[in-house]
């Protein structure tokens, strides 16, 4: 077994190797990347719980260590499954011109080393260091996408920085007050602390997670960044990187036990968690309603990631056996579903070169397997049995009903029913309907790209029928964190409200399908006609491209909230404000005399030093 430090070093040095290899041959470098990630997946799979390792010591009382916990291992496994599948997808995808393959592969490995460090860090500072490494790697990949993706990268970095600097500030504050940084010691100190200090600590630490997992009010970067990042990387961004935020949120509210730290506010939910649940609620609403409006398929799923981040936060925030388990299970489900959907979009863009829903149509006739991936992905995202997506949504609903939180419940229902609406839009617009003439000779993507997509399909269905492997992890996590573990046995999941059986549901679904097929087969076969042979109410069709209904698919409901308030606009206004202040300073001070400018800067620095803010 390789030590964790060495594993991370392998990735860091591997990035240089990958860069050189990809320079000589794109495919070779990507194969190297895939082998490395698959190896890391294997290693992490075999890691022992509570295995710890010293990384470096800064001062006498401050050591940076790695420790394998159930929580970290769960997140790391989900991440590495996503990353290694996507890495396999990239082997073929990288052949496409337009991105810088060598830099792409190298930064990918840097990002992965950061990700691994985050999930195994045992103290706040180590987590921060690797967090920034992961952000750095991903930040450098984002501008390789579309034309305006440089701006997207800046917005991504700035939003991420807001969260991580608040986190860093909390870390320093903790160190100054208690002189410790490891999670266990800090949580002991915080539980015993009676002042308001813990409010500020938990909120500031959570804010890193809020920024990263796209929770309101720091959600605006997802649309821009997910929409403009390179297509295959969007799958990692939405499937994996966003889950780092969920990890930090889980740390902020469960590793530092908020239940013990804050007084109960409503049915055993601490006040702080209640606040976070409301942030999650607002994210669900924003994500759902804005996703319904989108015409760009990648931005549509980016908004859905905001909504699902909200789901995870609501689940974790309840801090009750079944709700917390639902939140953790949703991490897995959304990771897989988002990766599937973004990979199928990457396949579509690979062949058609556009992400606009209304510029496509009828691709199912040319790319059936991509369609299957997308279909199973959205069934899981919308939480329909027998896919795994249902299990987590059901857990969250059960927890909310059990606690009598009806407004949150209503909002999660909006998110759930609304997800039928928005996932159907690309389904109808991109895959169904009339094939556009310009896409007449589009082909299915090559086998190497299909394999990871179809493996995801198998995984989603398998976990949907047999959720035990994931539930095992979740119940262990809950046991360690002092939450009552969920009860389940094989195919059956039990809550205080009742139970259901995954296998029965799957069997019944299969039976229903068989009955329908038998009925279908015994009656006479229909004549196959083209999609151009339509009922038109007597009109003559002369342009089949225009006969496809995809523009303004939900116009009638969008009209109801056309004049919605927008945080994106607010942030835009702030940006303009600061830019104009900068302009004024430049015009008034810098342009007349640069030396005066330097003088004033020195004065300001001296004042700051003197006041010691």
């Amino acid at each position, binding site marked *: 077994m390789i030590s964790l430090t060495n594993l991370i070093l392998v990735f860091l040095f591997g990035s240089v190797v990958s860069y050189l290899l990809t320079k000589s041959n794109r495919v070779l470098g990507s194969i190297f990347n895939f082998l490395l990630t698959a190896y890391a997946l294997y290693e992490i799979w075999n890691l022992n719980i509570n295995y710890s390792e010293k990384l470096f010591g800064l001062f006498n009382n401050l050591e940076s260590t790695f420790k394998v916990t159930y929580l970290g291992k769960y997140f790391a496994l989900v991440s590495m499954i996503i990353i290694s599948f996507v890495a396999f997808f990239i082997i073929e995808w990288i052949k496409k011109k337009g991105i810088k393959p060598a830099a792409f592969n190298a930064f990918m490995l840097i990002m992965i080393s950061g990700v691994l460090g985050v999930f195994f860090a045992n103290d706040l500072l180590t987590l921060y260091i690797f967090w920034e490494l992961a952000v750095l790697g991903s930040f450098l990949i984002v501008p390789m996408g579309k034309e305006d993706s440089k701006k997207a990268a800046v917005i991504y970095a700035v939003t991420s920085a807001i969260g991580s600097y608040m986190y860093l500030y909390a870390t320093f504050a903790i160190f100054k007050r208690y002189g410790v940084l490891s999670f266990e010691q800090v949580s002991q100190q915080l539980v015993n602390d009676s002042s308001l200090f813990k409010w500020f600590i938990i909120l500031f630490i959570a804010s890193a997670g809020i920024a990263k997992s796209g929770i309101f009010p720091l959600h605006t970067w997802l649309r821009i960044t997910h929409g403009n990042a390179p297509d295959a990387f969007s799958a990692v961004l939405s499937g994996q990187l966003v889950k780092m935020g969920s990890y930090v949120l889980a740390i902020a509210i469960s590793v530092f036990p908020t239940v013990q730290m804050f007084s109960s506010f409503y049915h055993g939910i601490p006040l702080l968690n209640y606040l976070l649940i409301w942030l999650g609620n607002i994210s669900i609403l924003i994500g759902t309603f804005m996703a319904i409006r989108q015409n760009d398929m990648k931005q549509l799923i980016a908004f859905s990631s905001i909504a699902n981040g909200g789901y995870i936060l609501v689940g974790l925030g309840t801090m009750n056996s079944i709700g917390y388990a639902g939140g953790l299970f949703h991490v897995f489900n959304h990771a897989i579903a988002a990766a599937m959907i973004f990979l199928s979009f990457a396949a579509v863009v690979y062949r058609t070169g556009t992400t606009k829903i209304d510029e496509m149509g009828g691709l199912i006739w040319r790319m059936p397997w991509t369609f299957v991936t997308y279909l199973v992905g959205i069934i899981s995202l919308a939480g329909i049995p027998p896919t795994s997506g249902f299990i987590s949504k059901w857990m969250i609903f059960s927890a909310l009903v059990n606690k009598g939180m009806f407004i949150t419940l209503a909002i999660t229902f909006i998110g759930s029913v609304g997800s039928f609406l928005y996932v159907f839009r690309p389904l109808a617009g991109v895959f169904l309907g009339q094939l556009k003439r310009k896409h007449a000779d589009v082909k299915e993507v090559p086998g190497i790209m299909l394999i990871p997509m179809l493996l995801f399909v198998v995984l989603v269905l398998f976990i949907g029928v047999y959720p035990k492997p994931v539930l095992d992890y979740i119940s262990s996590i809950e046991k360690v964190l002092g939450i009552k573990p969920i009860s389940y046995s094989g195919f059956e999941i039990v809550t205080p409200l009742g139970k259901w059986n995954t296998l029965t549901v799957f069997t019944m679904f299969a039976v229903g399908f068989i009955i329908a097929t038998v009925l279908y087969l015994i009656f006479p076969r229909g004549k196959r006609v083209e999609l151009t042979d339509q009922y038109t109410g007597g009109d003559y069709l002369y342009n089949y491209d225009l006969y496809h209904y995809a523009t303004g698919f939900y116009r009638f409901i969008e*009209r109801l909230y056309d004049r919605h308030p927008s945080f994106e606009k607010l942030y835009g206004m702030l940006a303009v404000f600061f830019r104009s202040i900068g302009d004024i300073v430049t015009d008034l001070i810098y342009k007349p005399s640069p030396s005066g400018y330097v003088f004033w800067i020195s004065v300001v620095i001296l004042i700051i030093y003197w006041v010691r803010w």
Partner: protein
Amino acid sequence: MTILKVIAVLLTGFFVGLTLEGIARKIMARVQRRYGPPWYQNFIDVFKALSKRGISHGWIFDFGILMALGGVIATLAFVPLGDLVAFPGLDNIFIIVYLFAVGALGMAMGMVGSGNPNASIGVARALTQMLGYELPYLISIAGVLYYYKTSSVSGLMMAQQDTWTLFKMPIGGIVAFVSLLGMLGKKPFDTPIAPAEIASGPMVELSAKYMGLLMLMHTFSIFVEIGLFVDIFLGVSNYFTFLLKFTIVWIIATLISSVLPRFRIEQVVKFYWKVPLSLAFVQVLFVLLGWVF
């Protein structure tokens, strides 16, 4: 045993469902001072449609119809018909509601797969309408779940030994019934079909056996929707009293729908989110405060 029960549920759905649809046509005709077709007209329709040679628009069209019918059959198997429960203890309300969505998704996919814009508009409207009625419905149901502390449908039914939930939570019952009208696609909530505007919407390209299979799906879905309402709100019932209550609810829904005009789609959503949703919240507030009769 389970297999026999599932078969019994499905056969009840088929025979009673088609009969009731025929009766509903008769009643509607009488309200509108027509004579109306005989009660067995729907059996004739289904078998005639099934036996014809129609047209298909490719594999996704066929697959969508199979998924629609299969999903609804699977859902129906989980609905308890009075004391006829195929899967005791496993008939979770969320399972039924979400498994039901498989049928809806299958139908939507197949019909949009036909490539007719009228079908797409109909499906978009149907999904929007779903966003309207599901919310008040699920909230009022959630109040019931919270009160009885179980999410098993047969458990909810057995919990009403002393009084019906409809009388314990009258506001929630009314909300659920109004939502039920939307679920059934009865007027004034038949916007997705709207024959005069969008040529029957989703069904525009259907013919012959495809039409027949979807008529079956429609029959079964009526059974799921009304069956849930009867089980949750109308007290303990055995198989026969269940069918009696079912018939009464169905007839009331038919009578209401036969005299009303149609909402526009955004009016549907606005209506559901204004009136029934606020009433549902009032009901759950009563439940939380313990004001249950």
